[in-house]
């Protein structure tokens, strides 16, 4: 199933707007929330094809959100692909445990919106 709907959980306004703008231009339907609690609620209320998840979020960290959605016995977002997008240098353990539940783990400063869209295409192809 091709990726069409995207949930972007990102608290930095500049970065959030940048992704939303580029992704919308590329034809995706994007919802953007800025805090962790809203992120978790939105992710549970609506099924998205893809979630872009920041780690350092107010209210609830990205690690907690991912754990709440995928850490239990049942995967609460079985139809959603997850890309963790962070600039925070996590320790290995937390990073590896997040990678387990995610389809990609990227450093925001290392990628541009153009590169992000390429990666989404790759996920689509996979």
């Amino acid at each position, binding site marked *: 199933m091709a990726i069409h709907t995207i949930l972007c959980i990102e608290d930095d306004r500049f*970065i959030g707007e940048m992704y939303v703008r580029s992704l919308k231009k590329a034809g995706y339907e994007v919802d953007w929330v800025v805090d962790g609690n809203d992120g978790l609620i939105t992710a549970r209320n609506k099924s998205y094809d893809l979630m872009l998840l920041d780690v350092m979020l107010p209210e609830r960290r990205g690690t907690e959100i991912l754990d709440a959605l995928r850490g239990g016995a049942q995967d609460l977002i079985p139809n959603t692909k997850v890309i963790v997008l962070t600039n*925070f240098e996590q320790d290995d353990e937390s990073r590896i445990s997040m990678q387990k539940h995610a389809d990609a783990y990227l*450093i*925001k*400063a290392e990628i541009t*919106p153009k*590169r992000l869209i390429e990666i989404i295409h790759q996920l689509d192809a996979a």
Partner: protein
Amino acid sequence: MNIIIIVAIATILILTHVFKISSIELWSLMIGLLVVSIVSSLFSVAAANRPTQDLLNAIIHISGEPTATPPPNPNDKRYAGTGFQAALQTLYELASHDKAIPETSTVSETTSIIESALNQTTSGLVVLDHDRNIAYSNHAAPVHIDQNNKKSLTLLFNGTDTLDAWLDTCEKESVHAEHIWTRIGDKLPEEEDRHLFDVIASYEKGTKSETVITLIDRTDIYNVNEQELDFIAFAAHELRGPITVIRGYLDVLEDELSDVLKDDQHELFRRLTVSANRLSGYINNILNTSRYDRRHLSVHMSEESLASVYAIIGDDMSLRAKAQHRLLSVSFPADLPTIAADPASLSEVLGNLIDNAIKYSNEGGAINVTAEVKGDFVEIDVEDHGIGMPGNVVGNLFQKFYRSHRSRETVAGTGIGLYISKAIVESHGGSISVRSEEGKGSTFSAFIPIYATVADKLQASDNSNQGLIEHGDGWIKNHSMYRG
């Protein structure tokens, strides 16, 4: 007494008229009796005196006074029936007790001094017996006692380099061995009252205290480092935010404005992009250096082609070379075997080497990136035709913060690029070296293991570098002693 008896006998004999008082028989009998009684009493005195004498001798011997007489033997036949044997034995026993008592009191005094000292020190001491049970542990030792009163160490070793694993090897291979682990915690990082130890274990096969473990509490030092690491991680997060936006919008804008931009404006955009990219590379260097110095840097290796690793930074490098007017040529043989690499880390190394080649060469200079098989390794060469270095500089090149005198004046840099590159390459189980000639240029060579040569080790250690590091001459093994 004897005389009274003799006189009494004589009186009876006279009174009964057996003998007359003047008769020679009476007197000779009396004298005879006297002699017999004197002699017999001499014997009985001697016999009665012997135990006393022996007792005295025994006491003299026990007290340690110098004496020529041999100590009385309690097993002497003479003593057998009299009960003196038992008396003498008791005496000797008491004496030996007496001797032993002062000795034990000194030993127990020393033991109690040592024990109180051991419990006073902040260093832990644990003794394991042959079955790895804790035979002794002092107060500072991180030991847990379970419901069955069984003691166990609460150390959390990193990866597979554990005490038990080491003891397994010792039991198989060693008579005497020593091993040091640094920065070993007794609790998880988030838990309260966590201590960090340097752990020194010495193993001596077959002794009562087969394994002696000394734990030096380094919590104060290591905790500061942890905080620094946190600080650097947060600082990096702060720095990366703006860089993300700058890189992102440059990307977006260049796309959206491509129709209206004139030639030189494209060039300006490129410079902006290159600079922003370099910033993000430097932040990675700083983060990696900080992790490496605290031995938190671990590489997770997988089977990769060199071309795919280079592709991560390829566009960026081309752009950078173009912006600085260098001729970058990258060519890898098509049949190059796959390598065991952490793509992100290794691409940073290549980025650092190419970045240096750009920095230390001249406008229009050619930079060649090539690769070939060398034994079990793929050798990746980054060659420039720039200013080069004299021999005395080369030796220091991979040291932290090292900048050659001249480069300090002419070229900007932090002096950690090569340091961290070396660390990353070595944690791949590889090596890095340089050939350079002043005025002609330098060639940096990184040797990365061919995947096939390390595949089994990697799989055995869950694709982390542990397996390689322990078996190769990697950096953790060599540097852990004086780092941290």
